[in-house]
Each structure stands twice: as C-alpha cells, then as structure tokens.
C-alpha cells in the first residue's frame, strides 16, 4: 500500500467517527461543567473537562475540522490555566463554556450538512472568554495547526540546496539507548542525505570494570557530502538535540576541495599552522638517512621498553598503570608505523637505474635487450633498497651476459631478436617479492649438474631435484660460462647475490626452463627493524611468528588432528590443513599439553598450521640478528628480547615449511635440535647420496 492510500480519502472515513466521538466528548464536557458548578475547585473534574477539549481540538485538526480546532484551542488554553490553578473557576466562565459547547455542536452539525454556523456568535464567545480570563487576544484562527507545515518548509529549502560538505560531531547523551534512540538509525538517516564518511570516537569508553552496558559512550565525527542544508541535518537529530553534543558546520569550499583530493584533514590543518613541517601537496623536506636510522633505533628501544612496561602493568593489576601502558602501547605502535613509513621508498628509482645499465651492457655485448618493469611503486625500507642494488645489478648482468643469446642465435632459435629482461616487484605479506626474469637460453639442469660434479660440489651419483640443481649455481665459485667476459663471470658468481640476500634476511629461488629463460625470485622482508608478531610458547621456550602471515589461531583438539601418510593434518573449519608441531620439529621432548593451539599461517607454499602449547598474544618486536655463528640457520630469521628479558626466536614460517617439505617427514627426525641448521645446500646432497 502506498502513502497515497492513507491520504485525504482515508481521513474522510474517520470524519464520521470523529463526529461521534466529539459529541460524546461534549456531553462529557457538559457533565464536568455541571459538576464544577457545584464544586469549583475539583481538580480531577477540571482535568476531565480539559482533556475533553484537548481531544476535540487535537482530533478536530487531525480530521480537517480546522474551525472547531481553532475555536476549541482558546477554550483549552483557558482550562489549562484553570486546572493548573492559575485561574479560578467562576460561574460566568462555566456558563460561557456551556454556550461554547453548544456552538461546537452547531459547528459539528454544519460540517455534517445540517444547519449553518454563525461566525459572529463564535467571535462573541471568544471575546467574552478573553475578558473573563484576561488571556491574550483570543484567536479564532489556527494558523499553524494545519497538517503538512513542515513539508512545505522543507521542500522550499531543498529547492536552493547545493552539494556541500558538512562536518557533524555527534555525541549522544549517556541515556540515549535507554530512551529508545538507536544512534545507528540516525547515521543511516544521514546517509539518505548524501555520502557519509563516518569516524567513530571511542575515547570516552571507560575501563571494562566501569562500563555500564546500557549507557552510550561513543561519539561520531561525520563528513556529509550532499545537496542538503543545516535544517535537514538538524532535523535528523530532532529527538535527541537537547540530550546530546551536536555540532553541524559547513566545511569551507577550499578545505572541502582538499578533502576531496584525499588529503587528510590533519594535513590540511598542519598546512595552516605557521612553520609546519609537512605542508599540503607535494612539498617535502630532506632529512639525512642517518637521522632516520637513529629515529628507528630509538623507536626500537621504545618498543622493547614498552613491552616490559606492558608486562609489569599486566602483573600489577593496577588499572591506572594498565591504562597508561595501553595508551603508550598505542602511541608506540603509531610512532613505529609512522617512522617506518618515512623510511619506505618506492623501487622506481632503483628500477630506473637499470634501464641505463641494460642499455650500456647491450651495446657492449652486441645484444638487443629490452628492460620491462612492473610494480615500480612497491615500497621497501630504504636500507633494504640500498642493499638490494648490488644483487640486482649482478642478476641483470648475468642475464645479459649468459642467458640472453646473440641476435643471430635468437633468430635461429625462433625467438625475437630483442631479448627481454623483466623486473617485477610485489608485496606478499611481510615480504616483497622481486623477480628478475629473462627470455634467454635458460639453465640446462644437466650442464649445471655436470659442472657441479666437475667442481667437486656434489658426488657424481647424487640424486637431485631440479630446484636443488639450480640452487647449486649459488655456491661459491660456480660459473657455467665457459669463458670469462668483461661483464661477469670473473669467478664471482651467484654466491655474491646469495650473500647479499642473506644479509637482508631474504631468500632466493631459481626457476628455469631450458631455452625459455630464467627467473630469479628474491623474497625480502619489508623492513629490517621492527615487526608485528604473535608470541607463542612451546614447553619453556618462546617463539615468535610474523603476524602478517597468520590467519587464525584455534584450539587443536585430538579429534581434529589426523595423520595422513605420516604427515600431520588438522581439520580447521572443515578444511584440511597440514601442520607442523613445533615441539616435534625442534625435538624439544616437552610433555604435550592437553589442549594445544594451532596457528594457521599463509606461506608461499600454501596454508600450514603451526601447533604450539599456547598462543600468548601479539607483540611488536625489535628484530635482533643472531650473529655470524647462526648465519646459516634458515628457519630462524632473528631473535627478540621479551618484556621479561627472555629471548624468543623469530621463526620464518615459509622456511620452516620449506625445510619440512625438503626433508620429507622431518618432524620425527632425531638429532639436531634445529634440523635446518644443517645448511640446506650442504646437507641436501649427502642425504640424497
């Protein structure tokens, strides 16, 4: 049914009902008046009379009896004064009201089609009423009492409305929810007026112990863009206006433009402050890298101290200290993020430098090579970028020199004369993947293997997978190029690349198709200093895993833990997930707790579960290097110092999974507490022999 069906036609049907009701109310009024005549100060009876008049007025206006409503309005006002004791009941007043009652009946009759109303008589009664009560000039006109007044007003306003930005601050009163107002509905109503950007302000939420679940502690800062006006916005809050904090202001055009361009408000305000360092737009300042390093070091120290504070505050059960600790925690996180982001630089500069390199090398080697890049906007920590230059130069030189054939050879192989080197970068969790691929001759696994045997790197009968063979070229002193050239192959091979990548705590993968090219993938951590981690406990030992890769932590019940072909598989949310029990992996011989927890981690090799005794929570961690002695431990990417001073190893989930896959069912192997410490490449070969 549409609103139209509820329109005047519907109202007409109720006019009859009103007539009937009004007559009943008039006889109620008369009997009350007669009672009042006997007992002038009976408040209960006065109230009855007032109610009768009030209802006649209200319903009369409702059903279009505007003349009656206007007339009764004056009587109602008089009786309001009488029942509140502001005016005394007198016999003339009672008689006048009785006469008025008769007049109303005449008006009802006239409306029903019998007889006519004498307007002079109405005016006479009202004039006399005015004299008796001393009220202001009695009006027989009920100007504002006709329906739809607000609609007229609002439509008049919207005609001139233009799209503007409005800033609205809304903090509902604490009892808003108890009084039946749902603030979300108000926000939705605002959304009908235009595009709404909502920011919730949770700052007033008290500590958990003091929260009254029925009170409202939230506030909202809103930015409304639409063709509306202040009245329409205020209208949304009409029922709560007195009980809430509400500021509505139109955003000046200039600022609106800045906001539209995506520049944050804070920044715009910063620009207005004299001497502000960060101005709106593209302006920037140069800071020496040393000072940035210092900043990050200081933030790193702060993170460590904060972890200790958090630990102590947690033990103390002192709400005040805990609150301060939590605030500092938030600030530290923001500070860390901020100082890290200052150090982030896009790879574009590095990529651009290689264009020149490829061009110059091409001329020198008489090869036609084109460099294509992808993801040059990917950002990396400045330190990582600086240290990345050398290995990348090396990889590109290698491709130019060894991989990409001469134009003649390429033509003979049915390829385009122009070779391509493709540089790409993209994010993957806490890492950046940088690929250098070419469409050259690729690696011939057999040649590599023969060369390795010749160099004594592998015994001649070793059974190696293709990936293992390719990784041989990373060994010191390995070079497949038969002749030494100007460009590369002077005895320093890919091992240089591997060392540089190791320093960055990255990893390196080689994939190749003979004849179709070579792809080297560098996997580098986004930053070198501080990361978000999950702290877990296995037996007495603590480990941390990078938070970015973690999908979820759930309890591992015995019925969800399965064995399949000697491998552990768990059912998590109906999905089969292979898992690694860290206590087994590290052969820790700790008693298995009754309830274990499984962390599901997204690695580049798929989803894997890491089963631990307990997940203790998330932390910010300063990465400390393990030092030279542990340089070859692949599965541990560093260590961190916890709040209580103990050391936790930072695991690299990707490498842990890789080591398990490479070593087969490794979690049962006895011996070394850190299986992967047996240096992937060196250990690989004797094992397969």
């Amino acid at each position, binding site marked *: 049914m549409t609103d139209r069906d509820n329109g005047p036609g519907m109202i007409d049907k109720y006019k009859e009902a009103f007539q009937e009701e009004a007559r009943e109310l008039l006889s109620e009024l008369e009997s009350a008046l007669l009672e009042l005549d006997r007992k002038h100060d009976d408040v209960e009876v006065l109230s009855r009379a007032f109610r009768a008049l009030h209802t006649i007025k209200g319903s009369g206006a409702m059903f279009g009896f505007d003349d009656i409503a206007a007339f009764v309005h004056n009587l109602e006002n008089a009786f309001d004064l009488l029942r509140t004791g502001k005016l005394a009941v007198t016999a003339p007043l009672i008689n006048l009201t009785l006469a008025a009652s008769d007049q109303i009946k005449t008006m009802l009759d006239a409306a029903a089609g019998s007889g006519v109303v004498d307007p002079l008589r109405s005016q006479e009664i009202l004039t006399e009423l005015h004299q008796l009560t001393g009220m202001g000039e009695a009006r027989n006109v009920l100007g504002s009492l006709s329906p739809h007044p607000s609609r007229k007003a609002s439509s008049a306003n919207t005609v001139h409305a233009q799209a503007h930005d409005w800033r609205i601050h809304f903090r509902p009163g604490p009892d808003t929810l108890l009084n039946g107002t749902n603030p979300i*509905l108000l926000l939705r109503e605002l959304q009908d007026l235009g595009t709404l950007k909502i920011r919730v302000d949770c700052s007033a939420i008290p500590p958990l112990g003091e929260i009254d679940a029925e009170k409202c502690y939230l506030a909202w800062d809103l930015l409304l863009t639409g063709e509306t006006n202040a009245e329409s916005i205020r209208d949304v809050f009409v029922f709560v206006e007195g009980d809430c904090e509400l500021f509505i202001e139109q955003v000046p055009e200039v600022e609106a433009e800045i906001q539209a361009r995506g520049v944050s408000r804070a920044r715009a305000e910063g620009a207005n402050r004299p001497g502000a360092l960060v101005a709106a737009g593209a302006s920037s300042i140069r800071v020496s890298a040393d000072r940035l390093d210092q900043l990050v070091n200081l933030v790193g120290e702060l993170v460590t101290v904060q972890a200790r504070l958090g630990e102590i505050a947690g033990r103390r059960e002192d709400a005040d200290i805990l609150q301060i600790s939590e605030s500092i925690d938030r600030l530290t996180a923001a500070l860390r993020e901020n100082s890290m982001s200052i150090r982030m630089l896009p790879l574009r500069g590095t990529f651009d430098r290689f264009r020149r390199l490829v061009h110059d090398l091409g001329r020198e080697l008489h090869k036609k090579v084109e460099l294509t890049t992808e993801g040059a906007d990917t950002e990396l920590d400045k330190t990582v970028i600086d240290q990345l230059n050398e290995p990348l130069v090396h990889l590109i030189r290698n491709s130019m020199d060894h991989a990409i054939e001469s134009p003649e050879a390429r033509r003979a192989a049915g390829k385009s004369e122009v070779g391509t080197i493709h540089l790409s970068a993209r994010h993957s969790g806490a890492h950046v993947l940088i690929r250098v691929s070419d469409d050259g001759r690729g690696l011939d696994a057999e040649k590599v293997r023969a060369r390795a045997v010749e160099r004594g790197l592998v015994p001649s009968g070793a059974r190696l997978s293709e990936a293992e063979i390719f990784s041989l070229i990373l060994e010191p002193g390995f070079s497949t190029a038969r002749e030494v050239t100007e460009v590369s192959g002077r005895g320093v091979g890919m091992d240089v690349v591997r060392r540089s990548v190791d320093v960055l705590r990255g990893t390196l993968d080689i994939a190749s198709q003979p004849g179709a090219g070579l792809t080297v993938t560098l996997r580098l951590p986004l930053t070198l200093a501080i990361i978000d981690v999950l702290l877990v406990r296995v037996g007495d030992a603590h480990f941390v895993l990078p938070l970015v890769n973690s999908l979820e932590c759930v309890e591992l019940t015995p019925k969800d833990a399965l064995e399949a072909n000697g491998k552990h598989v768990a059912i998590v949310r109906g999905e089969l997930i292979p898992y690694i029990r860290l206590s087994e992996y590290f052969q820790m011989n700790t008693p298995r707790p009754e309830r274990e927890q499984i962390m599901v981690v997204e690695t580049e090799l798929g989803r894997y579960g890491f089963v631990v005794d307990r997940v203790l929570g998330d932390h910010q961690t300063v990465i400390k290097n393990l030092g030279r002695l542990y340089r070859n431990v692949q599965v541990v990417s560093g260590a961190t110092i916890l709040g209580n001073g103990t050391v936790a190893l930072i695991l690299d989930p990707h490498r842990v999974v890789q080591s398990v896959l490479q070593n087969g069912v490794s979690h049962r192997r006895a011996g070394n507490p850190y299986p992967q410490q047996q240096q992937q490449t060196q250990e690989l070969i004797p094992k397969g022999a």
Partner: protein
Amino acid sequence: MSQVILTVDDSASMRQVVTFTLSAAGYTVIEAVDGKDALAKLSRMTTRVNLVITDLNMPNLDGIGLIRNVRTLPAFKGVPILMLTTESQESRKLEGKAAGATGWIVKPFAPEKLVGVVKKVLG
C-alpha cells in the same frame, strides 16, 4: 515478522487513524485506551513491543506517567516511545523527554508524516 506497535490514546478516532495508517504501512498495531490499559497490556504481552505511541492527556494514567512506568520495566528498557503532542504542549514535550520518551509527533499530522517518524525510530 512485522514489528509490533502499541498505540495509546483515549480518543477512539485518533486510535483508528494511527492503527489504520500503520497497519497499511505493514506494522502490527495494538490499541490501549489509556496509560493504565497500556501498562496492563504490556505486562501481558508475550511478543516484543517494538514501539509505543502515546497520547499525553488521558484519564487514569496520562502519557507522561505511562512513559515513566514503562522505563522502570526491565523488559521494556530502551523500547522507543513516541508522544502524540499538540503545538501548545511544548513544556509537556520536554517533560515527556525527561521521563524517557524517544520523540514526538505533533498533532495534527499527515499520515505519511506519522509513518515517517515511526520509520525514523524503528529503522
């Protein structure tokens, strides 16, 4: 399931208008003739009442009294309550707000205005 609205008014014609308008808009409407009747009906209700619309001037228990009583009932904490007022009742409106009313509708109103306000508080 349609939302349930309790309309409280001593004027039968007003009750009819509210009931007809809101039924047509898809709500289930229950009527009460005054505050006392409304409280009795609320206490017997087995389903949730989503909204109460009450007149202010009524015999036995008036609108303000009803609002105060409803707000003390744990089962009706936070239920929206709309007052039917007239323009001459500005002070009563504030009194009602203080007693815990959610909002108001000024009489006389066009049916679509009533539906609009109900939608405003019920979403």
